[in-house]
């Protein structure tokens, strides 16, 4: 309340200063002083006369009302005193001033004029500033930094992936060992020997790791010369050979495909440690261990040379390393420290931090297929096939699931051997293969991004903060969302325009249904309002005499133009939605919506709303047609309608169109009537025609602005940009029409 009172006091003091400045100039001039100084003195007296008592009262009592009152009384009193007590230098005044006193009089009046002019300039500046602030507020919310968090980092998918060289069922068995030996990590290959050949459980691996093959693979096929080699010493080629010897062709093929798409989350700790030690320098890993395990950031500084036992006191480390200086740790030792001390999620994060990974965009279609097979659930793969490959409507999916692939995918690319297989029987790998064959890479990447990576905007910052407070934002992101990363984002983008609505995710939602809805509504509005409006204008300008009825019509149109839009909404609700429900819901033509809250009702309502505007604008355009044109036409024997149709209307048409476009741009932005007519704010399907339920761009803006999540405000700002661009386009069209009209007239 204190602040409010002081604010009021300052406000009144400023007004008093203004008044003092303007009034003092002539008063001081009359008394024989320099009017410019007088104006300054008046302004200062008003300002401080108001502020000082206000501050005193604020200190003494603090009561809000008193503070404001004191400012008023103090300011007025100080000004009155100034004018009253200022001694007059000119003893007598002539009725007509002359000489110096006239000079002062003129200066006083001009001083007043200058102050007033400053005020007028100030008011137009404020108006323009308001427009600037409005646009800036919107822009500020449309572009900015966002913290994006991935469910699975894209790098985690691509870390170990490779191109399997063929579809899952089509790789030549004799090529597979070489491919495995080349692409799969040696540690993983040895693990595969334990897992696939020996069939050992995960918990038994550490124990089997250093035993000779003769013990581990007892009863399996292995070359005699390797009998004494421990599993941990197997060369990649040897391991691949062991796999090839013991697995049948089918298992080998699917093994290859599965390995090709393996993600970070499927790797053992041993493999992660090995990959870290190979892929990153010792120094890098030392810093990483220091930051992630001990929580000490050295960024670019020197890694401390204290012994490990001291630095990692309280954490797990091998006894043997206790006295090793931290900066002497080898890559393998640092990697082992990371693996033993970190939780799995943090470890994976550290791996992605330390190792270079490829982008999804760099992968081949087959590689993406392998990754898809390994990471996307089977049910989702099937949905993707039905939706994106077959293109079937959702309602038919249950019937399609039992069909053989030969029927379902007729004309599409699929392995010939699967023609008889039922759709419900295919494996992940086959399903992913079908997707990889039929979709382009972008579609596969989209599938992975949507289903696996699942990027989510967890927080957004306005443009201004993003530009000026980058470091503060980084700190906030690291403390609140450590696993997220900062990205620049424009909330208006191609996806925003073309995606359907998503009521929960501001970063995924689009405005397609609203755009379509708005355009459909406007189409109906134009179809109704344009002919009727122009017709009424022609009647009033060309036919109507000055009868009482016509005057009433004219007055009525002017009054209707001033009726608030929400009243039209109520009219639409009561008449189009409710009374004419049979028509507006489409029941009379069969089918349609459940009730009258449809595109048609909205279009009619907006048509009534802009009808007066169109009539008034069209009347002006018709009135501007020179009478000589009509007289010439009549003179040639044309009838009234012929004159209007062939001469008046073509001449007035650019003006009529300009007026109509301006009226339409008003209709596009109207929100209140659509709320009443019952526009939805969430639609699962796009509006399809006049008889479908609808939403519209302004409705979405309204909805998103009032939702509590801040990110929806970003989406609202983006939708506003789209709306404003639409309006700007329409207005430019009107301006072009207007300039063409004037060119033709001249």
């Amino acid at each position: 309340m204190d602040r409010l009172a002081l604010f009021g006091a300052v406000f009144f003091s400023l007004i008093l200063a203004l008044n003092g400045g303007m009034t003092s100039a002539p008063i001081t001039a009359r008394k024989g002083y320099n009017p410019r100084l007088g104006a300054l003195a008046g302004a200062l007296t008003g300002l401080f006369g108001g502020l000082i008592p206000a501050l005193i009262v604020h200190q003494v009592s603090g009561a809000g009302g008193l503070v404001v009152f004191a400012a008023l009384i103090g300011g007025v009193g100080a000004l009155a005193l100034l004018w009253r007590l200022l001694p007059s230098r000119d003893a007598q005044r002539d009725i007509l001033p002359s000489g110096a006193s006239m000079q002062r009089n003129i200066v006083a009046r001009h001083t007043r004029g200058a102050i007033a002019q400053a005020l007028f300039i100030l008011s137009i500046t404020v108006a323009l500033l308001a427009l600037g602030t409005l646009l800036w507020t919107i822009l500020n919310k449309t572009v900015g930094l966002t913290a994006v968090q991935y469910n699975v980092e894209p790098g985690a998918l691509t870390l170990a992936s490779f191109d399997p060289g063929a579809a899952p069922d089509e790789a030549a068995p004799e090529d597979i060992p070489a491919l495995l030996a080349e692409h799969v990590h040696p540690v993983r290959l040895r693990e595969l020997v334990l897992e696939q050949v020996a069939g050992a459980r995960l918990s038994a691996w550490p124990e089997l790791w250093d035993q000779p093959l003769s013990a581990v693979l007892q009863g399996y096929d292995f070359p005699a010369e390797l009998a004494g080699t421990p599993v941990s010493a197997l060369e990649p080629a040897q391991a691949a050979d062991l796999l090839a010897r013991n697995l049948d062709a089918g298992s080998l093929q699917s093994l290859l495909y599965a390995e090709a798409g393996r993600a970070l989350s499927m790797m053992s700790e041993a493999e992660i440690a090995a990959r870290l030690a190979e892929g990153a320098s010792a120094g890098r890993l030392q810093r990483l261990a220091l930051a992630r395990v001990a929580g000490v950031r050295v960024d670019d500084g020197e890694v401390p040379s204290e012994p490990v036992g001291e630095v990692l006191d309280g954490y797990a480390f091998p006894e043997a390393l206790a006295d090793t200086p931290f900066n002497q740790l080898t890559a393998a030792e640092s990697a082992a420290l990371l693996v033993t001390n970190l939780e799995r999620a943090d470890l994976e994060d550290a791996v992605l931090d330390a190792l270079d990974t490829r982008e999804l965009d760099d992968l081949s279609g087959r590689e993406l297929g392998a990754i898809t097979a390994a990471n996307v659930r089977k049910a989702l793969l099937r949905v993707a096939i039905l939706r994106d490959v077959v293109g079937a409507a959702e309602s038919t999916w249950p019937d399609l699931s039992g069909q053989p692939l030969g029927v379902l995918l007729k004309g599409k690319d699929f392995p010939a051997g699967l023609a008889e297989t039922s759709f419900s029987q295919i494996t992940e790998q086959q399903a992913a293969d079908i997707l990889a064959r039929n979709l382009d890479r972008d579609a596969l990447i989209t599938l992975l991004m949507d289903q696996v990576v699942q990027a989510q905007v967890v927080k957004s910052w306005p443009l201004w903060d993003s530009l000026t407070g980058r470091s503060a934002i980084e700190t906030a992101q690291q403390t609140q969302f450590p696993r997220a990363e900062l990205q620049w984002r424009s909330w208006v983008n191609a996806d925003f325009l073309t995606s359907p609505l998503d009521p929960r995710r501001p970063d995924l939602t689009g405005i397609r249904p609203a755009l379509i809805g708005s355009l459909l509504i406007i189409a109906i509005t134009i179809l109704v309002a344009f002919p009727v409006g122009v017709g009424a204008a022609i009647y009033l300008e060309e036919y109507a005499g000055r009868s009482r009825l016509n005057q009433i019509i004219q007055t009525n149109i002017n009054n209707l133009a001033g009726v608030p839009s929400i009243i039209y909404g109520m009219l639409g609700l009561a008449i189009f939605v409710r009374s004419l429900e049979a028509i507006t819901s489409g029941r009379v033509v069969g089918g349609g919506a459940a009730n009258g809250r449809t595109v048609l009702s909205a279009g009619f309502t907006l048509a009534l709303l802009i009808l007066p505007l169109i009539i008034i604008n069209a009347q002006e355009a018709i009135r501007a047609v020179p009478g000589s044109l009509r007289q010439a036409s009549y003179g040639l024997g044309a009838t009234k309608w012929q004159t209007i149709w062939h001469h008046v209307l073509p001449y007035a048409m650019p003006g009529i169109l300009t007026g109509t476009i301006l009226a339409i741009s008003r209709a596009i932005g109207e929100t209140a009537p659509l709320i009443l007519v019952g526009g939805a704010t969430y639609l699962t399907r796009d509006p399809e025609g006049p008889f479908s339920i609808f939403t519209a761009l302004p409705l979405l803006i309204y909805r998103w602005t009032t939702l509590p999540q801040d990110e929806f405000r970003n989406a609202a700002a983006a939708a506003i940009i789209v709306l404003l661009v639409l309006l700007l386009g329409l207005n430019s069209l009107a301006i072009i029409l207007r300039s063409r009209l004037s060119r033709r007239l001249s």
Partner: protein
Amino acid sequence: MEHKAMMVNERVRLVAPTHDDTPSLNLMKRRRPGESLIQGFLFLCGFMTIFTTIAIVIVLGRESLLLVTSEYVDEGGAIHTIGVLDFVSTTRWQPHRYEVGIAPLATATLLSAAIAMLVALPLGLGSAIYLSEYASPRVRATVKPILEVLAGVPTVVYGFFALQFMTPLLQDLLGRDVVEIFNVASAGLVMGVMILPLVASMSEDALSAVPRSLREASYGLGSTRLETTVRVVLPAAVSGIAAAFIIAISRAIGETMIMAIAAGARSNFTLNPFESAWTMTGYIASISGGDLAYDTLDYNSIFVVGLLLFLMTLLLNILSRSIVARFREVYE
């Protein structure tokens, strides 16, 4: 060429009919059913607007009448009726509790309109005077279209602006304990900004319509520009300016989206502009957001509020028009 010559021949014959066997021209007005049909259709188009007005009056009147004649049965089975006097004699607006005193909505509406006028009238008139009396033609040609852009921005965008810019600004200036997140002041101030171009544009038209000779006469008598503006031009244009002011008030009362977004949604009988309060339009918009069931008290109540709104704006519009008609100074 031959064809053209023939046509000329024919025209000549029409103008000067010969006495031989060509039929004489009937110069009486012919009945043209097509033309009459078209005229009838055009009249219907014009009459459509009358129909709209009648429909508005009937719809609002009928549903409002239903409110006072219906009996509403609550969940407990008790029957409630609403009396006409309840609207003015009580001061609580809670239709779901069968309390329909219009005072809270009306005060909030008038309060927001008053705040908007505090911004729009002085700034609008100041801008108009600057553009009409001070600005060079080039400045005027640049600034006027910009103001028109400001006037063309949809009101829902201003609502966003109020919530996103004005409310935080007020909260920072005056303290979060004083200013609620949704408040009438923020909505009213932004509404003032929204109406400003309307006032500026209409007043500027009125000022520009004052003939140059009046200004020149004033300058000739030695007046400064300010004195000419205030003592000569403004009085001459006062009818147009008054009309602009009244239209502005009418717009402020009928403005919906800014109120629905930024002014909050609770019935609040207060004059404190920093609290949230339902205005009449805000009430209509927020209550009809969902699927409003027909013939409930809520449904009927929005029509009563709408009727009041309609009458208020209509009255103001008529007043504005009659001021122009009565006090307009016509110069030739």
